[in-house]
């Protein structure tokens, strides 16, 4: 019987394991499907990771390496090339070459499977179906891990961070990035990536535009983009056609929750991740979630921070036979806030609660506000909020302690 089994050996899984270890768990197992630990960081060879955690700029593999070293130092066991087939509250079934299909028992599970990219099909872009259409992450893998060139004349649809990073990466590899095309009137990527990856290389960013036609029987030959109106419908007559051999898609990330769904864990329709309380426990007893499987993060530093907490909670659960709390207070949203993680706060919480959320539109000179029982308890000014950046705020326990009965907690934005 394991104390904590962690599904996924990326940044979330590694931090969760360290968090569990810190709280005194000795019987931990990390299960990783690929051939090495580190997850998607291994292909993110650009820098900019770790500014919050290590106060220095690391590349993805360097950031991962630090956590892998810590996990090795703590002698936390892990399985590689091992895919989890199914989970239930206290068991995990996995498959690998050495053991075949095997089911293990565990007191707690931490979900840390990460996310995947939205493919072309989900967008229903009409046209031919040639080769040369990649999700940005696949192109990144081909470029950085396989050392291959996905294409030479590139249009990128979507200005998510991976798309922006790949615009620079492909340029550095000698490709011509013709344009980055974004459906929305704002980018969904980090501001610093727009400056460092597009502006510095004079790559045009076409906001309120989309790809309306893909041509090419064998390989992509032409990509047509059009401006869109307020309803995001293409405006006839605004077409621009590029002679391109490649289309990269950076059109959104989806938490990869097939295991969670099959296990009956309730997912949020907004984030696509499990609904959790402030201990990161899902509505399935003893199953916790963290990282991009919970909600898509902008910075890995936040993933590590959140996952460590989730690992600690899983350890406390495993070691103390802690019963689920009697009452959880739902956190609701208002203004531009789309969701919060956690979605619920344990009434008996003994700790400050970190709330993360994203906004649905760009907001300048607004406020982030927290209300308890309808009463404003936190209000802080924020010069700019954007969908591409995650907002974080802490509700100190002393605020919640002031209330005899908490009926509602609301988090949102105001003018």
């Amino acid at each position: 019987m394991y104390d904590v089994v962690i599904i996924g050996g990326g940044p979330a899984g590694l931090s969760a394991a360290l968090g569990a270890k810190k709280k005194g768990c000795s019987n931990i197992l990390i299960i990783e499907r690929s051939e090495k630990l580190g997850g998607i960081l291994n292909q993110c060879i650009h820098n900019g990771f770790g500014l919050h955690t290590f106060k220095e700029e690391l590349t993805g593999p360097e950031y991962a390496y630090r956590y892998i070293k810590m996990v090795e130092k703590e002698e936390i066991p892990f399985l590689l090339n091992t895919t989890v087939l199914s989970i239930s509250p206290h068991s995990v079934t996995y498959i690998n070459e050495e053991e075949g299909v095997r089911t293990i028992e565990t007191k707690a599970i931490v979900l840390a499977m990460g996310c995947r990219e939205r493919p072309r099909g989900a967008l229903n872009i009409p046209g031919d179906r040639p080769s040369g259409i990649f999700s940005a992450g696949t192109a990144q893998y081909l470029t950085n891990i396989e050392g291959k060139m996905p294409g030479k004349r590139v249009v990128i649809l979507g200005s998510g961070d991976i798309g922006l990073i790949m615009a620079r990466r492909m340029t550095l590899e000698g490709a011509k990035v013709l344009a980055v095309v974004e459906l929305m009137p704002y980018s969904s990527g980090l501001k610093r990536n727009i400056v460092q990856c597009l502006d510095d290389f004079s790559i045009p960013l076409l906001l309120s535009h989309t790809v309306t036609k893909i041509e090419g029987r064998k390989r992509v030959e032409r990509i047509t983009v059009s401006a869109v109106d307020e309803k995001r419908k293409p405006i006839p007559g605004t077409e621009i056609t590029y002679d391109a051999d490649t289309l990269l898609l950076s059109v959104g990330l989806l938490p990869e929750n097939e295991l969670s769904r099959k296990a009956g864990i309730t997912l949020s329709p907004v984030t696509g991740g499990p609904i959790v309380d402030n201990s990161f426990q899902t509505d399935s007893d003893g199953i916790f979630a963290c990282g991009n499987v919970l909600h898509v993060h902008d910075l890995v530093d936040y993933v590590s921070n959140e996952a460590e907490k989730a690992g600690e909670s899983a350890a406390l659960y495993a070691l103390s036979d802690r019963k689920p709390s009697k009452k959880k207070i739902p956190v609701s949203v208002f203004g531009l806030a789309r969701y919060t993680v956690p979605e619920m706060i344990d009434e008996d919480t003994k700790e400050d609660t970190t709330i993360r959320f994203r906004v649905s539109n760009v907001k300048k000179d607004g406020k982030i506000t927290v209300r308890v029982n309808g009463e404003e308890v936190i209000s802080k000014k924020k010069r700019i909020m954007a969908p591409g950046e995650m907002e974080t705020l802490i509700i100190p326990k002393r605020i919640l302690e002031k209330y005899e009965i908490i009926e509602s907690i609301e988090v949102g934005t105001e003018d």
Partner: protein
Amino acid sequence: MDYDAVVIGGGVIGSAIVRYLSLYDMKTLLVEKEEDISSGTTKANSGIVHAGYDPEPDTLKAKLNVKGAKMIREESEKLHFDYKVNGAMVVSFSPDDDYKIDELYERGIKNGVEDMEILSGDEARKIEPNLSENVTKCLYLKSSAIVCPFSLTQALAENAYENGAEFKFNTKVENIERIDGGYRVITDTSSSITTRTVINAAGVYGDAINNMVSEKKIHITARRGSYMLFDNETKGMFNSTIFQLPSSKGKGVLVTPTVHGNLMIGPNSVSIPDKDDTSTTAFDLDYISKEALKTSPYIPFRKVITSFSGIRAHEDSGDFIVGEAEDAPGFFNAAGIESPGLSSSLAIGEMVAKMVADRLEKNKKENPILERKAPPRPREMSIDERNKLIKANPTYGKIVCRCEEISEGEIIDAITRPLGARSLDGIKRRVRAGMGRCQGGFCSPKVMELIEKYASIPFDEINKNSLGSNITMEDK
């Protein structure tokens, strides 16, 4: 003569013909212009084995459909392709149209369709709860089935190969000349091929091939139909295939599970001048969405994982053209094979093979191989069976395609078995790696590594499908 018979076209029809020819004592070759079998009409269609209610009685379509559907059921147990009897419903949305359901029932009886039943809208909804409230009446066809067209074609081609048939890919027929006692087939590769008989199974190009040889010209129009395929989370939403009442343009937009359980909707029918134009248009996708919503208001469009188009070969006569050309002895057509072509494929194959054998006075082989060993399907095995397989060959324990749970061993098998895959689409059609919700985002580089290793194709030369559809580009 190099061959007794040369089959042009490696779709399900050509593969069925070459399979039945391979049971005879003769030397047979199949030539295909693409890099793999199943690369034309076969790669994008509804995958339905129709019961046979639709074709006009006494047409070839009617006869071969009903017979072919039975043969597919029987052969599925010997050739081991993906096949499932799931039942179908033809639904009407207005009491004014309900009489047409009765007419179809009568037509089905004439065509020899078994296991039909007429249901009320409510009775139909009891079986398929996601059907629209507007369905008033339904013809329930319990013998209707679904098949994976790639799996069927692969099984036929592999069995033919095991029985000694030869295959040439990336070989396009440019002309056919009559020579003494047969034909010379001229291709775009250097050598020409001499043969006693030629069989035309060239799909939408069937007219071009026929017209090289016969003065009895035929004319084929390419009709394009678009589809949307949904995430396998939609499994169970519909168990039967749901047709709307047919019109002169075809069977209309259907809503069906695929044999692997994903929900699929489509097709429409648009005549197109360019026979290779499998593009999708916003208009077409919009049309099939709206039509499918009539059948069920619950179609989850957020769960679409891909949309695509297929091309059907419509001959002006409206019926299949199967048989020897009147003015060209030894030249046989299987042309104009549109719906119900997949359902009729085995009946067409058997019929054409017999005609060719009769013409050449050839007998059946004494001991042809009639069964084909299916590739292992670890995810369908019990845990004990699966573990036994992994113990014998550990690569079956390493998952490469996470969405469809496909192991490295299955992909290696797809590359190394007879007529193995050489492209990403070839892998996808054989073992479904890349067919799932991420559409190959994660697994395609890994699959390419395996193709490089086991098919000895340099990474930069691996194609998505046709020559020239390379995935990565050589540096500089």
